């Protein structure tokens, strides 16, 4: 079991006051804080290693390249990819999905269908809308059920031989729903669709084995898993990565360039044009080690405890409505009150030093489904504690006394 109090000592940022109150950080689905080990790795990179990767024969460049590639190996093991070259560095989940969506421009046309879920973050939605617009393909949606899970019967009905792409998230950032990735992937493959999974919330909260799940693409962001911002990954099955054209042109992604034309580098470099965010990759490596040392089992047990405790605490508050009540949901408590704007609650929680997210959580179609302007969302990480939940519960009750 995780000792949250002990873990907190590794996070300098958590030890501060906001509006004169000790900070309670419950916006972890937006981004997690970084342990000292990650901050130190980034500093160490600049103090000892900084150099461009894959370029020089000199020692520093070699060290930078080793550190950069070491993280790729860690990511390969994290998601159990068959090959290291199946891990592409991107700017984040958004960058990863755009890479795939852009690549499909030459592979789709009118009559083809893209199936996405209504549960998506805008970053796993807008790129597909753009792709549909560009190619003339049709976008269809898997609807959600009142508990915030996907309507799987409808998903099966919507899948058909024209479905070329199936995209959905592993875990919903707005509601915490954990989707049946393996099952959906099997159904998608049965009609010949390419399956793209948004794993931004999956990687920090659940074990991921891309071979066992069978997915074609799986996207993630370092900053949601104790690592730096501005770096992410795209796992892609080799066949698909070979089939997709490069996303951006530039240095690093070519093998030969003449005035007439260029030939592209092999995987993964074909998709990694330009000097990458090396410091962030190195920091991510440290974050992965940090998570590994705790272990996913312990992280999940801790999360389950907080979810049970938090659900009970919030349910005790008069009039509180929880959005997203699917079984085994993950790390997110999204809630509201019929007569209150989430923004008012969020403001009064902030005044008490409690950081939550309010609004639509970049998932407007979900809010439209529930016909609400948004929710208040508390989301947990490894360092979250029952005391955080108590402060949240008390804070909400105090806000209610003021607002009603």
């Amino acid at each position, binding site marked *: 079991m995780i000792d949250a109090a002990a873990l907190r000592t590794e996070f300098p940022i958590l030890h501060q006051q906001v509006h004169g109150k000790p900070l309670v950080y419950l916006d972890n689905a937006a981004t997690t804080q970084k342990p000292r080990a990650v901050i130190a790795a980034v500093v160490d990179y600049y103090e000892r290693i900084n150099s461009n990767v894959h370029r020089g024969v000199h020692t520093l460049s070699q060290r930078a390249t080793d550190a950069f590639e070491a993280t790729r190996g860690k990511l390969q093991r994290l998601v159990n990819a068959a090959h290291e070259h199946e891990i592409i560095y991107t700017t984040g989940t958004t960058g990863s999905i755009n890479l795939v969506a852009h690549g499909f421009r030459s592979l789709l046309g009118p009559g083809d269908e893209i199936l996405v879920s209504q549960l998506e973050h805008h970053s796993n939605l807008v790129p597909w809308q753009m792709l549909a617009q560009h190619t003339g393909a049709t976008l269809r949606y898997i609807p959600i059920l009142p508990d915030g899970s996907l309507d799987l019967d409808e998903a099966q009905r919507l899948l058909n031989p024209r479905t070329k792409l199936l995209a959905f998230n592993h875990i919903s950032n707005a509601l915490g729903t954990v989707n049946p990735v393996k099952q959906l992937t099997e159904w998608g493959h049965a009609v010949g669709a390419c399956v793209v999974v948004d794993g931004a919330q999956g990687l920090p909260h659940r074990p991921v084995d891309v071979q066992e799940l069978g997915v074609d693409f799986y996207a993630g962001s370092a900053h949601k898993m104790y690592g730096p911002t501005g770096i992410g990954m795209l796992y892609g099955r080799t066949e698909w990565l070979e089939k997709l054209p490069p996303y951006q042109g530039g240095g690093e992604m070519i093998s030969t360039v003449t005035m007439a034309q260029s030939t592209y580098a092999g995987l993964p470099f074909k998709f990694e044009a330009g000097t990458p965010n090396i410091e962030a990759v190195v920091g991510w490596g440290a974050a992965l080690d940090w998570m590994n040392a705790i272990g996913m089992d312990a992280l999940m047990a801790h999360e389950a405890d907080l979810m049970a405790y938090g659900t009970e605490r919030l349910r005790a508050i008069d009039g509180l409505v929880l959005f997203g009540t699917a079984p085994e949901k993950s790390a997110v408590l999204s809630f509201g009150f019929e007569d209150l704007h989430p923004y008012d609650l969020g403001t009064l929680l902030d005044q008490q030093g409690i950081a939550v997210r309010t609004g639509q959580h970049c998932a407007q179609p979900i809010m439209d489904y529930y016909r609400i302007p*948004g929710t208040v969302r508390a989301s947990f990480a490894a360092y979250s504690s029952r005391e955080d939940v108590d402060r949240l519960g008390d804070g909400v009750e105090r806000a209610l006394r003021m607002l009603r």
Partner: protein
Amino acid sequence: MSTLEILKAREAEVVEEFEFFDEWMDRYEHLIAQGKTLPAASESIKTDDNLIRGCQSKVWITAEKREGLVYFTADSDAIITRGLVALLLRVCNGLAPEVLAQADFGFLQEIGLTEHLSPTRANGLQSMMKQIRLYGVAFQAVN
């Protein structure tokens, strides 16, 4: 009293009220109380034309001129925002258009409200102030 003097007097009154509270939670409580006293505007003003952009919550504002003075009707779907709206209306209602066109609403800064709001709310507040000034300008023109 000229309507400029009325504006200054009302602003001073609001500042004094808020300075009475040391704790920001108490200031928010006072703001919420203001929001609760603001009469609900009729649904008919809640149109896209009257909607102010730049708020996470919605704010609608409209105005009319009677006997040379400007009267606002406004509302919001969030209570704290309603409180801000109520404060603005309290100081602005029934003033001459040329006074409104020039109003700098310095009292909000004095209370510390502008810096204590979240960036989106502060933006929304800026938009509301701008809209009030624009009404002032527009009603000057139709003299």
